[in-house]
């Protein structure tokens, strides 16, 4: 059987993540971030080595991954927390998770849809893979800031209305 064509991601949902990322970093970390041109990603490996993952359910399902270079993650977390944290400490993972939570939650309010976000997970280490929805593209939003590069990887789809 031929593969089903992938659904397109609603650009409004992508725009919500762009706005949210800039807002969260500016407000909580006092960092200006520049957003590059979104593109599609076809492999399961995130862009960088530290991933904050938040799942969506409800009228939007899937996940968003905030992916950081190791050093960028360390620097952003230091600016967020006000102290240097060890890459492998619980507090570091907690900080990455909370940033991811805020980016996902802040984006969700602009969806215009009923969606829930899960509690974030954090993975640290080069070469990890993330299982994604297969029937919708993963859109990578590249970001740069004074403390380094990171990416917001959006793999979500709107659920069709189910008749009563």
């Amino acid at each position, binding site marked *: 059987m031929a593969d089903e064509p992938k659904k397109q991601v609603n650009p409004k949902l992508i725009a919500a993540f762009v706005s949210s990322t800039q807002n969260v970093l500016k407000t909580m970390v006092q960092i200006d971030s520049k957003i590059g041109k979104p593109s599609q990603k076809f492999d399961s490996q995130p862009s960088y080595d530290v991933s904050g993952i938040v799942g969506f359910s409800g009228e939007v399902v899937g996940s968003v991954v905030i992916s950081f270079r190791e050093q960028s993650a360390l620097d952003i977390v230091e600016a967020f927390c006000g102290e240097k944290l060890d890459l492998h400490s619980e507090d570091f993972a907690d900080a990455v998770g*909370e940033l991811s939570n805020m980016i996902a939650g802040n984006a969700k309010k602009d969806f215009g849809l009923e969606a829930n976000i899960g509690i974030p997970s954090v993975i640290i280490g080069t070469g990890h893979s993330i299982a994604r929805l297969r029937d919708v593209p993963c859109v990578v939003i590249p970001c740069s800031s004074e403390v380094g590069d990171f990416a917001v990887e959006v793999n979500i789809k709107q659920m069709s209305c189910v008749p009563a």
Partner: protein
Amino acid sequence: MVMKFLLVDDSRTMRNIWKKVLSSLENSETVEAGDGVEGLNAIKENGPVDIMLIDWNMPNMDGLTMVKKVRETDKATPIIMVTTEAEKPRIIEAIKAGVNNYVVKPFTPDALLGKIDETLKRAGQTA
């Protein structure tokens, strides 16, 4: 007079940020909890607090459930929900559950302090 804050969020990072913001207030004391269950236990163990800051999405017991349980016996202690849930229906749901004010993450320190001040004034107290 010492003002006692109960801080309930599963993120220790966020609780530390709240504590840092509150450190600018004179005579503030904090009690922390990592979820709604711990929050309710903290009230039992530490006695009444003057104001609660509660996150919504937490494991074991979420913030909305904790607020409802608190309000079963305590209608008076001011509660501020501090959360990423920003949609109007959610805010209405939280107010119906008994929260007195609402702060959406991300927030600036001044925004949080402003909401605390506003909430306490409405309750007839000052920080």
